[in-house]
């Protein structure tokens, strides 16, 4: 389990690093043009640490991820993702990962991001990817949908959420400086959240 999670985090790092330019371009349109640079810096460091050390439990892995992002990202996404991963590290267990756990993880991520950024759904942030994804998981659990279908639905909702940011006006973060002119651009943080969720789900489904 621990090793699979380590591989998952390495895969996530690789995906973010691959998308460094894309995320940076998105941020250049409505922010300061560093989101990809920021996250790639954080995840590169994470990769190095993951490759060097051995880990006892998944909580340790997520705590390391949190602290590495907090220390190395340098932009708002550092404390935001950092606090999300820190919250995950507090609830994740080593022996199982069912729909209940996934809902808890999603909710804890949201709680962490909201603690730091005080944003709600609809403010054109990473939450607009993560909240619909979490809602989808909860809906699946309530309807006793099987895990594979639940994950596929969740991914679909995350993608929809990400794309829904295009039409939104930013009211939090640097993009909010642009006011109405933030409309028409996909939010970089919503995009990186989607990439991470996609990596988690795809690796789970394999």
């Amino acid at each position, binding site marked *: 389990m621990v090793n699979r999670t380590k591989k998952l985090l390495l895969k996530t790092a690789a995906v973010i690093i691959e998308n460094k330019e894309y995320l940076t371009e998105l941020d250049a*349109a409505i*922010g*300061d*043009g560093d989101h990809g640079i920021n996250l790639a810096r954080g995840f590169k460091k994470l990769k190095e640490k993951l490759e060097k050390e051995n880990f006892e439990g998944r909580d340790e892995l997520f705590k390391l991820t949190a602290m590495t992002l907090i220390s190395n990202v340098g932009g708002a996404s550092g404390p935001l993702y950092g606090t999300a991963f820190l919250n995950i590290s507090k609830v994740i267990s080593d022996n199982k990962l069912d729909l209940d756990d996934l809902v808890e993880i999603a909710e804890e991520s949201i709680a962490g991001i909201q603690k730091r950024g*005080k944003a709600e759904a609809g403010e054109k942030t990473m939450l607009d990817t993560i909240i619909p994804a979490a809602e989808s998981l909860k809906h699946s659990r309530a309807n006793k949908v099987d895990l594979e279908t639940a994950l596929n639905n969740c991914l679909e909702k995350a993608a929809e959420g990400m794309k829904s940011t295009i039409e939104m006006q930013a009211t*939090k973060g*640097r993009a909010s*400086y*642009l*006011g109405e002119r933030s409309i028409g651009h996909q939010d970089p943080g919503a995009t990186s959240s989607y990439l991470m969720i996609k990596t988690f789900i795809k690796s789970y489904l394999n």
Partner: protein
Amino acid sequence: MVNILIISHSLKIAEGTKELAEEMKQDEVDIQIAGGINNGELGTDADLIEQKLQNMDYKDGIVVLADLGSAVMSFNMVKEWLPEEKQKLIRLANAPLVEGAVLGAVEASLGKNLEEVMATIEENSIINKNNL
């Protein structure tokens, strides 16, 4: 496009503020600085302010951000030396230096006019740091 002049007693503050503001601008706003005296000492250099105001494009207006009273005094003096129709287009903002420059750069690069840029950066909420 509205352009921006940053006047600080400190060259470092002026340079850093320009970098921070340029990171956010979406278009060709001209951000100029007049920082410090004698290449690094703290103070205001009226000649440098004059030189910048002489050379900047002012047809859509110039927003001026200054840090402390003596910078304001030097700016007001230099401004009076300019032709009257130019004076009208150069405005000292009641705005904080760094925060005003960053927000002003965004506003200007969105194509807002002089009045609009001034109105936005002169809102008191610009210093509500605890309100994310």
